[in-house]
């Protein structure tokens, strides 16, 4: 293990918390020291759901280590008395797993009415994603019961979970699609599922498991054990959603033919639009507009989990016509699949010549088919700095890195942030998801006229937070503001609030008037660049001529 400022994936017991917190009347108990309960507040801070997170830490203290005592049975009894869960999932944290205790035996001593499942999540072998997926698969195997199929065509939606990336709005989108098709949603799991719902999983005609990270293994099990076919693709982008819809209808009708059930028809595509009369997504038209023309020469770098990295690379390339500068994932165990999906999308393996390419030892970035595979955010930031793409699609950490690099960035993959748990409708899947992502790309990337001005004057004058305060102080009041007193004090000079700084050139009225014609959002930057130019040239008065000369010199 390694001390890190940032982890793309949480620990194994965080993965357990995500599953327990998703479900009805299921509670996780962490056998862990005080410090390892940091996972609990993550749920309250980010998701901000009305209920308390369904997890409790059974604190292991120095006394327990010194005397061999264990609090767990008492915690289990308390959890049962207060919350009456149907199932309690017990797991050790990274620290307590070192004690090699037999928690099965300890938990059995609690004699609770609720079922207790001790989940062996070894944090030295697995992190959040494998732990959550492993637990959900285990629960599916434990509770799914053989039963007849529903009378009407139906699906399970498998994979949405607590703290998932935009999963609540993905669900809204998928439910709307099912409603439009007249297909019943049998069970959604783990989010909102009770143990009884888990038992009903095999009643569905088809499983939808769009997330590579969670639910796919459970769907594979249901397919093997109960013969439920599964649709594993993620409908990200317009064409993939269309293909996904056709496949869904086809698979449901295969089942219908087998069980002599009702058929499903694909309605006109306008039925999938929110207003019921337009095309279901604006992306195909939008991509052909003049606005979008300025995307054609732009390139993007994509980094994230497996599902979203693959989906977004294809969407940017196939539907927005952007070039792909590179891509990567922090999920090493999915790197092979991601690379296979992205064959033909990634630039010819330029990075195999880079010095980082052959560092494949543990914790070092490696390259799989031109894909960057690393869980160190510094490697990702270095790759972005090296590629200087026009757009980065990444996690919250890439958003952070890109602020420093001054590169536009949108967040397309977990881990989530408060901003990924907003109240509004922002799905990633389906036609609506395509619209959301396209808007995000459009409003984030620098475009058209804006780009022209930036080429002219350096940048858009839109400083980021780090120096935002200074920006407001210096630039928003117009040209005749006296230099700020703080600046003088801070630089050690005597405060002379009424005396302008000797170096600052003065603007003549006609030059001022011309400056005011510059769009407001770059005016401050233009003003500073021209003043800098004038100072360098030893000019004390900025006239229209000086302004013109500055424009020439600065590349205009």
């Amino acid at each position, binding site marked *: 293990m390694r001390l890190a400022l940032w982890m793309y994936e949480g620990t194994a017991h965080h993965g357990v918390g995500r599953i327990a917190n998703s479900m009805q009347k299921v509670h996780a108990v962490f056998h862990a020291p005080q410090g390892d309960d940091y996972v609990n507040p993550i749920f309250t801070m980010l998701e901000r759901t009305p209920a308390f997170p369904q997890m409790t830490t059974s604190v292991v*203290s*120095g*006394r*327990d*280590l*010194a*005397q*061999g*005592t*264990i609090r767990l049975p008492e915690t289990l009894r308390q959890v049962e008395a207060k919350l009456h869960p149907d199932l309690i999932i017990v797991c050790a944290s990274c620290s307590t797993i*070192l*004690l090699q*205790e037999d928690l099965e035996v300890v938990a059995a001593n609690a004699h609770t009415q609720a079922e207790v499942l001790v989940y062996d999540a070894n944090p030295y072998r697995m992190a959040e994603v494998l732990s959550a997926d492993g637990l959900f698969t285990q629960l599916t195997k434990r509770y799914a019961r053989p039963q007849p199929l529903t009378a009407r065509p139906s699906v399970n939606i498998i994979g949405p979970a607590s703290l998932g990336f935009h999963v609540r709005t993905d669900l809204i989108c998928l439910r709307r699609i099912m409603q439009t098709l007249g297909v019943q949603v049998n069970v959604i799991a783990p989010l909102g599922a009770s143990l009884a719902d888990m038992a009903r999983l095999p009643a569905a005609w088809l499983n939808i498991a769009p997330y590579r990270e969670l639910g796919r293994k459970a769907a594979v099990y249901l397919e093997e054990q109960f013969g439920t076919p599964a649709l594993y693709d993620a409908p990200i982008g317009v064409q993939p959603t269309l293909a996904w819809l056709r496949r869904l209808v086809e698979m449901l009708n295969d089942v219908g033919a087998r069980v002599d059930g009702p058929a499903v028809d694909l309605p006109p595509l306008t039925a999938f639009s929110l207003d019921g009369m337009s095309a279901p997504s604006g992306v195909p038209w939008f991509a052909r507009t003049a606005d979008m023309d300025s995307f054609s020469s732009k390139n993007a770098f994509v980094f994230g989990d497996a599902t979203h990295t693959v989906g977004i690379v294809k969407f940017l390339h196939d539907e927005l016509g952007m070039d792909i500068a590179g891509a990567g994932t922090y999920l090493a165990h999915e790197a092979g699949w991601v690379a296979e999906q992205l064959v033909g999308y990634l630039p010819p393996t330029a990075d195999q010549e880079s010095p980082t390419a052959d560092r494949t030892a543990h914790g070092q970035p490696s390259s799989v088919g031109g894909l960057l595979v690393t869980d160190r955010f510094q490697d990702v930031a270095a790759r972005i700095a090296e590629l200087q793409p026009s757009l980065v699609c990444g996690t919250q950490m890439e958003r952070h890195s890109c602020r420093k690099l001054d590169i536009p960035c949108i967040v397309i993959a977990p881990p989530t942030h408060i901003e990924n748990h907003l109240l509004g409708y922002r799905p990633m899947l389906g036609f609506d998801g395509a619209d959301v992502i396209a808007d995000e790309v459009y409003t984030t990337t620098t475009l058209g006229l804006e780009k022209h001005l930036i080429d002219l004057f350096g940048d858009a004058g839109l400083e980021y937070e780090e120096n935002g305060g200074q920006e407001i102080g210096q630039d928003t009041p117009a040209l005749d503001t006296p230099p700020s007193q703080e600046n003088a004090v801070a630089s050690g000079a005597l405060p002379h609030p009424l005396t302008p700084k000797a170096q600052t050139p003065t603007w003549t009225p006609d030059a001022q008037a011309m400056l005011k014609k510059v769009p407001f959002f770059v005016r401050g930057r233009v003003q500073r660049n021209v003043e800098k130019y004038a100072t360098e040239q030893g000019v004390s008065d900025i006239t229209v001529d000086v302004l013109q000369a500055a424009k020439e010199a600065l590349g205009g």
Partner: protein
Amino acid sequence: MSLTLAVYGKGGIGKSTTSANLSAAFALQGAKVLQIGCDPKHDSTFPLTGTLQNTVIDVLTEVDFHIEDVDIDDVVKHGYAGVDTLESGGPPAGSGCGGYVVGETVKLLNEFGLYNKYDVIVFDVLGDVVCGGFSAPLNYADFGVIIACNDFDSIFAANRLCLAIKQKSVRYKVKLAGIIANRVDYEYGGGTALLDEFASTVGTEIIGKVPYHDLIRRSRLAGRTLFEMEGPDKEQCIAPFTHMADYLLNQPRSEVPSPLGDREIFNVIGGWK
């Protein structure tokens, strides 16, 4: 000058008996000595005090684990020749974490400022360095001392202890002061030939040879140091301790050992006599 020793050796080799007699020998030469038993079995200081004293864990239990309520006098007892004694204690066998307790005790003593109050501190640590907790005394020790007999098993364990000391010496000041040969059987020709060979191979030396004598066994049963015993050959039994105390107090030679690999030692030891 203060001197901190960490005594290690294979289980049952006589670490506690040897440590207690060595502590007594230091004290009889006028040094202010603290012996710290770092074994959950907490019987290290028995020969010095004649009792199984309260451990740090016993005391913590009394104050409900409020470490700020622990007074140093609650945990430090006084034994033969003015030697102060302390036992870390630990959880019942097979539960909790013994290494955690040892590591915490060693840190607690640091918080109490105990490392500056004595001329000599002797850590008597359990058999082998099995985890970080049991290596904690090496973070404070000037010297490691290994107790071994003239047999393969204890030499194999000694080699592993050399590995632990070598590893620690990368970041800490600790070096190996030498090997104490225990149960040297002069009568039946046991000698120390294997041990001599091992010591020169890893780059250390034998700093004392304690005879295999019934007086030592009886002293352990009686809960006394050798110095308090009466019987034939007493002088012969005491002499190595007095000599070692004198040697260790006067800036002994010490080295970072060059241990053999675990497999290597199997191959070479057959050629020794």
